[in-house]
C-alpha cells in the first residue's frame, strides 16, 4: 500500500522534474548563437544557392522559429498552439529534423531500440562480469584472482575507449574474424528478425559491449569488492556460516545483498550514463545508436532532433532514478519513506 503510494508519488515528482529538465534542455540547445536554419541560410547565401535559402526560410515559419524563445518552448512541448495548432511533444509530435529533412520520429526510430539494445547488452555484460568477479575478488581478497581481476579491470579503464575498440576490432578481425564496426551485417538490415540476424547482431555486439562495458564493469567490480569486504566481517555472516551454507550461497544471499545497496542506487545512473557514455563510443565505433545522431544534431544545431534525443536520455535517467528509488525502498526495509523524524 505504502509502497504503491510511494511509487505514485515518485512518478509525480518525475513528471515535474521532467518538465524542468525539458525547459533546461531547450535553453541549452538554444544557448549557442544562431540556429540550424540561420546557419544554413548564411552558408547557402555564401555559396549562392538561393533555392536552399527559400526552403530554409519556409521552414522557419513552419516551425515557429521566428517567434520568441519562450513561445518556441511552449510550442515544442505542446502547451501552446504552433502555426498548425497544438502539436508538441506531449501530443506525440517529436518535431522535424532539418539536418535529415525528415520527421524526428523517423530518424530516431531505429536507433532508439538499437541504443537500448547496445546498452542493455553492456549492462548485462557489466552485471555478468562484475557481480561474480567482484564477489570472488572479495572472497579471495589478496590472491591472484583478486589481483588479476583488478588488473584486467583497470586495463579496460585506463585504455581510451576508441583505442580499445580499434585494437579489439583490428586483432579481433585478424584472429577471430570479428566484424569491424556496425551492429549487424548490412545484408540483414531491414530484414525481419531471424536466427541468422540475431546471430549477426550478437556477433557484432561483442566489441562494442566490451568497450562500453569494461569501464562500467571494472568500476562496479572494485566497488563491490570493497563493500563486500566490509560486510564479510559482520556477525550475521558468521551466523550464516554457522548454518552450514556453502560459501557461494552465503556470499550472494547475505553480504552481497547488503553490499549491493549503493549499486541499486546507481541503477538509475547505469542506463543513462551508458547512453551518454556510449554517445562518444558510438560516434567513434560508428554504431547506429542515438549517440552519433545526437552529436550531429548538436553540432548542426538541429534543435528538434537534439531536443528530442536529449529528452529521451533525460527520460531514461529519470525513469532509472525512479526505479532505483523504489527498488531501494523495496530492498532495504530499514529505509523509511518519510524523512528523518527528529
Amino acid at each position: 500500500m505504502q509502497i504503491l503510494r510511494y511509487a505514485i508519488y515518485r512518478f509525480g515528482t518525475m513528471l515535474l522534474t521532467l518538465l524542468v529538465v525539458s525547459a533546461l534542455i531547450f535553453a541549452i540547445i538554444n544557448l549557442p548563437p544562431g540556429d540550424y536554419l540561420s546557419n544554413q541560410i548564411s552558408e547557402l547565401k555564401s555559396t549562392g544557392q538561393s533555392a536552399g535559402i527559400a526552403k530554409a526560410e519556409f521552414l522557419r515559419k513552419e516551425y515557429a522559429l521566428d517567434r520568441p524563445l519562450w513561445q518556441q518552448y511552449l510550442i515544442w512541448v505542446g502547451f501552446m498552439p504552433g502555426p498548425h495548432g497544438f502539436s508538441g511533444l506531449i501530443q506525440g509530435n517529436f518535431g522535424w529534423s532539418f539536418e535529415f529533412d525528415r520527421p524526428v520520429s523517423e530518424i530516431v526510430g531505429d536507433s532508439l531500440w538499437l541504443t537500448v539494445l547496445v546498452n542493455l547488452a553492456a549492462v548485462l555484460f557489466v552485471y555478468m562480469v562484475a557481480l561474480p568477479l567482484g564477489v570472488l575478488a572479495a572472497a579471495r581478497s589478496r590472491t591472484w584472482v583478486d589481483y588479476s581481476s583488478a588488473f584486467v579491470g583497470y586495463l579496460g579503464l585506463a585504455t581510451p575507449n576508441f583505442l580499445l575498440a580499434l585494437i579489439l576490432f583490428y586483432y579481433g578481425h585478424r584472429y577471430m574474424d570479428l566484424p569491424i564496426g556496425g551492429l549487424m551485417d548490412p545484408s540483414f538490415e531491414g530484414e525481419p528478425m531471424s536466427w541468422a540476424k540475431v546471430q549477426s547482431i550478437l556477433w557484432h555486439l561483442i566489441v562494442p559491449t566490451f568497450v562500453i562495458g569494461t569501464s562500467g564493469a571494472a568500476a562496479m567490480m572494485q566497488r563491490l569488492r570493497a563493500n563486500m569486504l566490509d560486510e564479510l566481517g559482520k556477525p550475521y555472516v558468521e551466523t550464516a556460516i554457522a548454518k552450514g551454507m556453502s560459501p557461494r550461497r552465503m556470499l550472494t544471499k547475505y553480504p552481497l545483498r547488503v553490499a549491493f545497496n549503493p549499486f541499486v542506487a546507481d541503477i538509475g545512473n547505469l542506463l543513462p550514463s551508458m547512453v551518454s557514455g556510449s554517445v562518444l563510443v558510438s560516434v567513434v565505433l560508428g554504431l547506429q545508436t542515438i549517440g552519433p545522431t545526437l552529436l550531429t544534431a548538436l553540432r548542426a544545431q538541429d534543435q528538434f532532433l537534439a531536443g528530442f534525443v536529449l529528452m529521451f536520455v533525460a527520460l531514461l535517467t529519470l525513469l532509472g532514478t525512479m526505479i532505483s528509488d523504489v527498488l531501494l525502498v523495496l530492498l532495504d526495509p530499514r529505509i523509511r519513506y518519510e524523512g528523518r523524524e527528529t
Partner: protein
Amino acid sequence: APQLKETPYWTERVSKGELPPVAERVPAEPLVVDLEAKGRTFGTPGGTLTTLVSRDRDIRMMVVYGYARLMGYDEQYHLVPDLLASVDIEDDKVFTLHLRKGHKWSDGAPFTSADFAYFWEDVANNAELSPSGPPDFLRIEGKYPTVTTPDETTVVYAWEAPNPLFLQTLAQARPPFIYRPAHVLKKYHVKYADPAELAAEVAEARVKSWAALHNGVDNMYDFDNPELPTLQPWVNKSDGKKIRHKFERNPYYHRIDSHGVQLPYIDAVEMEIVSGGLIAAKANAGETDLQGRGLDFRDIPILRKGEADGKPYRTLLWANGVASQIAIYPNLNCADSVWRDVLRDVRVRRALSLGIDRVAINRALYFKMAKPGAMAVLPQSAFYDEENTKAWANFDAAQANLLLDEAGLDKRQGDGTRLLPDGRPMELIIETAGERQEVENALQIVTDTWRDIGVKLVMRPLDRDILRNRIYAGTTMASVWYGWDNGIPQSYTSPDFLAPRQQEFFAWPKWGQYYQTNGGSGEPPDMEAPKRLLELSHDWEKAGDDAARAEIWREMLKIHADNVFGIGILSEAPQPIVVSNNLKNVPLQAIWAWDPGAHFGVHRMDEFYFEGGRK
C-alpha cells in the same frame, strides 16, 4: 553507333517484359565512350562495388561519384556536354541546351525540356517552394534569364548580360539541378495534384504543408529518396537510415562504350556507413573495393601492410587537388585592432611565411612526398608559375627577422618573443579544426621555427563549426585550413575565391560577407591589393575571351603570391586510394579533388569494372 548489347543484369527482366530492351532504353544518340582512346580497357558488366562513407548524408556521394551532369569536366578538365547532346552559346548570354532524344529518367519516363520548364516555372519561380526566388547563379546583374523550351529537346536560357559561369556551375561536384522529374513531382505540387490526395499525402508524411512535402521529396542532390528518378549511373534503392545503402545500375543510363555495352559496368554499388576512424581498419581488412574518402596520408603504412599481408587490394597514391594541404590564414579582419594592423603589414606575413621550415614538415608528415611551397596553383594548371610557388616560401629566419624588425616589431621580451606596438608579446593564436592531426603536428614544427623569429605560436583546436563561426565573427587572429579547394583552375574557372568575395577564405571573412550579403554585413575591403583583386574578378566576369581571363587569373595569382594572404605550407600530398585488385580502369595517377573533380567523378567511375564482371 555501335551495335547495342543487352546488359546481363537486365536480361531476365527484359525477357519477362518488365523492362524494355536496351535499344529502347538508351537515348537515340547515346554518349559513346571511346575507352581505347582514353587508354582504358573494355570491361565486362557485373559485380557489386563496396565503398565506405562515414556519415549518413554521405550517400549523396553517389551523385558526386556518378558525375552525370548536363555539362561535365573530362579528365583534362575540359568542359564537355554530358547529359546534354550539345550546347550552343551566344556571347555567354544565350545558352541553347540540346537534350538527347529518347533520353529517359531511371524510371523510364522521358527526360525532356518539360522537366526544365517544371523547374523554372513551378519550382524556382513558385513563391511557396522558393520564397526568395530562383537560385543566385541564375541572376546576373539582378536579372533572371528568360527560359524557353521551344521543343522537347531544346531549352534556352537567355540573359541580357553575359553569364560566363553558367556551364561551369552546372558541372560542379554539387550541381544546381535546373531540371526536375516533373512527372513525379507534379503529384506533390498544388498546381497539378488532386487537392484531396495531396492533403492525404501531406498528412501521412507528417509535414505541415504541400510545399514541405514537395521539398521533402525533391532532393536530387541528397539522393536519399529512392522514388525520385535520377539520371546518374546508379540509382538509390534504399530508403531511410541504414548501415548499408544499395545503388543499382540505371537501366536508362545515357552512356555506352564503343562496343555497345551500356555503362556503368558495375551493376551495383553498396555504400556502407562506418565510423570515420574505422575506415582505415576496414580498408586494411579488404572490406572496401574503392576508397578515397576517409583515408589519410598517415594511413598509408597500414594500407600497405594490408597489401603485404595478402589482402586483395592495392593502394594508389593520387595527388591532392587542393592548392595547399595546410595553409595558415592571418585574419586581416581580426577584431583586435593591434593585431589587425600587424597582420595587414605584408612584411609580417612574408616573414611568417619565411619562418616556416617546409622541408622539415614535408619530411615529418608526408614522407617527403608532398611539395613544399606557398599557396599557388598546382603544376597541372595552365597558370602554374614556379615563381609563385616559391615566393617567400624558403626557410630563411634571418630574412624573416629582418622583415619583422622593419615592420616595427623590433622590441623583444626576455624569452625573445617580439612585442606588439602596444607592448603585448607577439603571441599569435592559431585556431584549427581539431580533426586533422597533421595540422597539429605541422604547427608544432612551425612553433619551433617561429620561435627563432620571435613569434610565439599558440595553437587552439576547436570544433569545425565553432571555428567557422569564430572566424566569421572576426574573433580569431589566424586559422588553419586547406588552401584553395581548386588547385587547378582553368581560365573559365571563376576566380571568386581569390578575390575578397567569399567569407570562406579565412583571411578576409568580413570582406567576403560584405560582398556575399551585398553590403548587408561585414565591411568593404580597405586595402589596396584586395581591392585590386575585387576589381580583377569583376573584370573576369566581363572578359570576353579566355585569353583575357587567363591574364586576369595570372595577375590575381601574382598578387596572392606577393601578398601572402594565405601562408601555404605544402601541396600535392599523396592521397591514398584503395582499389580492389580486380577493379580495372582506375587510373594509377590522378588528382583527388572536389571541385572540379568530384573525387572519382571526373575519372568516370561508370567505366570502372571488375575483371570478369565479378568481384
